[in-house]
Every structure is written in structure tokens, then in C-alpha cells.
């Protein structure tokens, strides 16, 4: 609950503002050609001749990260099925869980910080491809975690258990505004919060600004090697290269605290950015971490061109939550002590 409240409170200003300006296609509209790559499309070029990925993008989508079990190996919906699903979302009752739809913050919660409160229009939520899950392939789910990885993650959780309110160090990275869910790479959509990404290109660099926590990656494309292994960063070290019309970004050097879905510091991430049409970018990533999963796995997320502006998301600057949580815990301890006497 704490985490949810923070995410909501910290994002409130940005969310409210974005709600008014983000233009999204009507529900049910799909970018079907985007994911199949059926249509040849020549992307525009920058002044120095590189594929031009620039603009403001949104990774909003209803497609769930993992495939609902009932769908088995079904990787794609038919056009008709997507239309029907979108209609169910549009007409769904608040609180109704819809299999095959990731409603995220659009789902009412115990503490009411849902999108309706912020003026969001549930009927604007949409599918951006016919995929049944963002994870590609016959399984459509994250491979089972290796026993050693499960132990590693369980040990970490156990260490924190009973100490959750001891100090700021025990709070989550997102609560502390160090690394929020959506800015952490690889970038995965939160169903409807401010998923705006702005790309600006200069000679030899592609920069990617994620609205969430003003997270900025300056990615060199000049073929330089990774940083030495001794330098570890929350967002790792990213180096890029062009493969035809695709920007391929290779990232290593993560910290042992970054832990993307339970990964280790040896996580190796490869992201591929390909424009598929004037208003669609295909963002694909593959994660590889032999200390966590037996095999690499891949997800594909269509991004939609949208209008700005990208707002400043000053999470830490407005973070009153850590203070409130810790003070609350200390007050409770004191009260308990008094009661015991």
C-alpha cells in the first residue's frame, strides 16, 4: 500500500497534466502491421544520415506482460478478438478483472488512487498489437527462476522482513525515488501512468528521456566498449550501434541492487528500437542472466507517437513519504512502549 500510495502521490501532478494532452487512438485500434513487420517502411533519416527515431512516444498498452494461462500457446489474437476485448475493457465495471487486459492503475484499489480520480478516461485505453502478451514466443511468460536465484531473492527478502520500517534503507528503490519501476531498464509499461519517452539524437549519440523521474540515458553509437566491470550503475552501462534501421543497445554493469524481476548483477540486456511507421516504434528487449534464468527471454512493446510536452517528474524533490512512513513507525513504537509500562 505504501508503495502504491507513493507511486500515485508522486506521480499525481504529472499524471493529471498528462491526462489532458496525451492523444491516444480510439480503443480497439491496433497497430497490427507494426508487430508483424509485414509492410516495408523506410524511416526518415537525421541530418547525418542515421535512422530518425526522434519524437515523443508512449508505451501505453492494455497487453499484459505475461500471457493468461488459459490461452496456452496462442501468441496472437485475431482482429475480431482484439475488438471484443477492447470493448469489454471499455464497458467493464470498475473493479472487474478482465483476463487478457492489464488495467494497472485503472483498477480501483483499497485506497482510491485510480485513474478516474485523476480524470483519466478508461475508454481511451487500447491494445497496441494483437499479441496476447508482451513476452514473445510459445510460452509468453518469464521462464521459471533457477533455484539459486530463488534462494538469492528469498534471502534478500528474509533479511528485510520485520525491519521494513527501520530506516530509509529498508524502503523500496521506487519509494526512495532512486529507481522507479518504469524508468528501470528494460522499460516496461505501467498501464496508464506517464509513459512518455522522448528521443533526441545528435551525432554519435541517441538520448532517451523517460518522463518517469526524468530518467535520461545518453547512449553512444560510436562502437566504444563497455565501462570496466568495476564501475556498476543502477541503470548499467549502455552502448549502441545501428543495424540497418534498428538501434541496438547493449547494457551490462548493473548493480546487485537493480534486480530486474529478480535478476542478478550479471544481467545482460539487449534492446532493439525500430520505427515501423510514422507513428509506431517497436521496442524489443532480450534479457539474459544465466544466474537467474535457464534461457534468455524476449518482450516486444509497440510505442505510439504522441504529443508532448514531457513534464518534469521531480520525484525525490516532492518525496514526503519516507519521512511520513518512518515518523509514523517511530510514533507507533513510542506508543507501544508507553502502553507496556
Amino acid at each position: 500500500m505504501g508503495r502504491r500510495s507513493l507511486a500515485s502521490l508522486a506521480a499525481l501532478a504529472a499524471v493529471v497534466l498528462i491526462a489532458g494532452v496525451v492523444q491516444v487512438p480510439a480503443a480497439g485500434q491496433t497497430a497490427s502491421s507494426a508487430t508483424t513487420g509485414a509492410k516495408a517502411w523506410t524511416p526518415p533519416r537525421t541530418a547525418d544520415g542515421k535512422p530518425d527515431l526522434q519524437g515523443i512516444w508512449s508505451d501505453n498498452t492494455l497487453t499484459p506482460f505475461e500471457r493468461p494461462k488459459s490461452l496456452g500457446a496462442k501468441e496472437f489474437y485475431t482482429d475480431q478478438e482484439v475488438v471484443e476485448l477492447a470493448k469489454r475493457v471499455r464497458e467493464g465495471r470498475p473493479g472487474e478483472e478482465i483476463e487478457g487486459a492489464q488495467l494497472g492503475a485503472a483498477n480501483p484499489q483499497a485506497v482510491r488512487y485510480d485513474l478516474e480520480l485523476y480524470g483519466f478516461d478508461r475508454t481511451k485505453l487500447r491494445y497496441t498489437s494483437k499479441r496476447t502478451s508482451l513476452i514473445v514466443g510459445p510460452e509468453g511468460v518469464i521462464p521459471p527462476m533457477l533455484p539459486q536465484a530463488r534462494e538469492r531473492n528469498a534471502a534478500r527478502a528474509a533479511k528485510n522482513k520485520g525491519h521494513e520500517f527501520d530506516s530509509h534503507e529498508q524502503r523500496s528503490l521506487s519509494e526512495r525515488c532512486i529507481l522507479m519501476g518504469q524508468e528501470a531498464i528494460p522499460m516496461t509499461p505501467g498501464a496508464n501512468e506517464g509513459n512518455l519517452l522522448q528521443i533526441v539524437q545528435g551525432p554519435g549519440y541517441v538520448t532517451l528521456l523517460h518522463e518517469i523521474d526524468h530518467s535520461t540515458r545518453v547512449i553512444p553509437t560510436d562502437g566504444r566498449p563497455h565501462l570496466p566491470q568495476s564501475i556498476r550503475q543502477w541503470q548499467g552501462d549502455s552502448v549502441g550501434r545501428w543495424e540497418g534501421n534498428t538501434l541496438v543497445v547493449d547494457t551490462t554493469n548493473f548493480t546487485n541492487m537493480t534486480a530486474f524481476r529478480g535478476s542478478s548483477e550479471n544481467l545482460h540486456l539487449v534492446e532493439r528500437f525500430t520505427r515501423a511507421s510514422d507513428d509506431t516504434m517497436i521496442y524489443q528487449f532480450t534479457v539474459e542472466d544465466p544466474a537467474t534464468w535457464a534461457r534468455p527471454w524476449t518482450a516486444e512493446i509497440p510505442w505510439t507517437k504522441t504529443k508532448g510536452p514531457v513534464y518534469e517528474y521531480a520525484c525525490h524533490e516532492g518525496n514526503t513519504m519516507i519521512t511520513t512512513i518512518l515518523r509514523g513507525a517511530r510514533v507507533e513504537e513510542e506508543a507501544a512502549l508507553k502502553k507496556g509500562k
Partner: protein
Amino acid sequence: MRIRLRDSVIPGLTTAVFLLLAAMLSAQAPSYRAPRAADGKPNLNGIWQAVNTADWDLQGHAAAKGPVASLGAAFAVPPGLSVVEGDEIPYLPAAAVKKRQNQANWTTLDPESKCYLPGVPRATYLPYPFQIVQSPQNILMSYEYAGAVRVVNMGAPTKAPGDSWMGWSNGRWEGDTLVIDVTSMLDNTWFDRAGNFHSDALHVVERYTPRSADTLTYEATIEDPKVFSRPWKISMPLYRRVEKDARLLEFKCVEFAEELMYGTLRKKSSN
């Protein structure tokens, strides 16, 4: 002879002196022509850094004892000349009092101690590099400190959607100079560790002028009628980080500020 001297030599000398003066004056104006980007505009791409003590104090200052005794000379205040034109910051009387209070309590009050976004112009001369990534439509400035960032709009000027820490930047080219008009900044940022501050009426006009392949002249005119009696100006060179493989590294400083901000709220028995 005497007459000829007065009639022709002196006017001739006067002309020569005038021409010499004119030449000296024009030498002070930027005669360097910057290399061009692919779109024909001056190419400011690169990683830049100020090499001065402006973040300690915009005005001239002698060396001083640092705020943390245990760090000894390692965190002493380094001396520095003023980057303020005329070395005077024209505070209104009440604001001058607040500036002195800020300075007396800077270790706890300075937004830099808390890893807050630095605002403009401070982002430029913090002791960390920043990178300019230039496209025809936008110029992105990525600052190592706190992962701060701003995107300068190079198209038709747009209006800020709201106030922010880093402000709203509209840019244009004036010859070789990148001129950025920055508005809509919150009043939470400072100019330096000496407590120099501003209100939400701050308006900054920055000028980035190439002066050689690896240096820029940075100027910022600061206007804030609630705090200052007149606009004032800072000026300093910026240097290119020319190291092979120079790059911005991650300085997500929140975790370095947490003990200062939340340390007193630790559970007593937990440490």
C-alpha cells in the same frame, strides 16, 4: 613644417590610433567560427564542464575552513575569483538579509545537499560535466549531477505548461551563439553554496558562444524583480572534456542525501 605636422601627420596619427583601437575592440568580439553540425548550425555537441569555484560562491572569495571538521582540508572551501560582472549581486534589502541567513545555514538549507534538481544556471557550473546533444528541433542537455536534464526547444517558442525545477527553455541561434531563454522556474533552487537565491520570478537568458574548438563562453543574465534591483550577469568559460571515451557516469545522488534527510528517523535499536 610645423603646420604640415598639425595638418596632416596628427590627423593621420589620430586615424591610425582609431583604427588600432577598432582592431583591438573587434578582437574582443568572437572572431572564431565554430564548426557546423549537419544542419549547418554551430556544432556544440560534446561533454562540457566549468573549471572554477562558482558553485562555492559566484562572487570572489578567499579560501576558508570547510563545514565538516573530520574531512579537514579535503573539503575546505577553495578560493576563487568572481564570475559576476562587477562582482556585485544587486539584492534588494530584504533579500540581502535572506542571502546572509542562507549562507549561515547552507549545509542544511542548500538544495544541492539534498540532491535536488539544480535549476538554471547552477546546473552549468556544478562541479560535474554535462553533455549537449544537438538536433535541429531540440537540444538536450544531460547533467551528470542528479541525472538532471532539460530539452531546449529550438522551434517556435512555446509556453511552459507549469513551473518546474529546471524551468522551460526556448532556444535560438544568434550567429554562432546559442541563446536560451529560461522561465517558469520554482523558487526552490539556489545559485551556489553561498546562499545566493532567487524567487519564482526568475528569468535567465543564457548565451553559449564557441571561442575555440574545445572552449565555450557561457554567459547568463539573471533577472528577478522580487529579489534583485536590476538584472546582473555571470560569465565563465566552459571546457570540453577531451579524454578518450569521456562520458557522463551515473550520479544518482538521492542515496547520498538520505542520511542527512531521514537519518534522525532511524529506529533507535536498529543501528
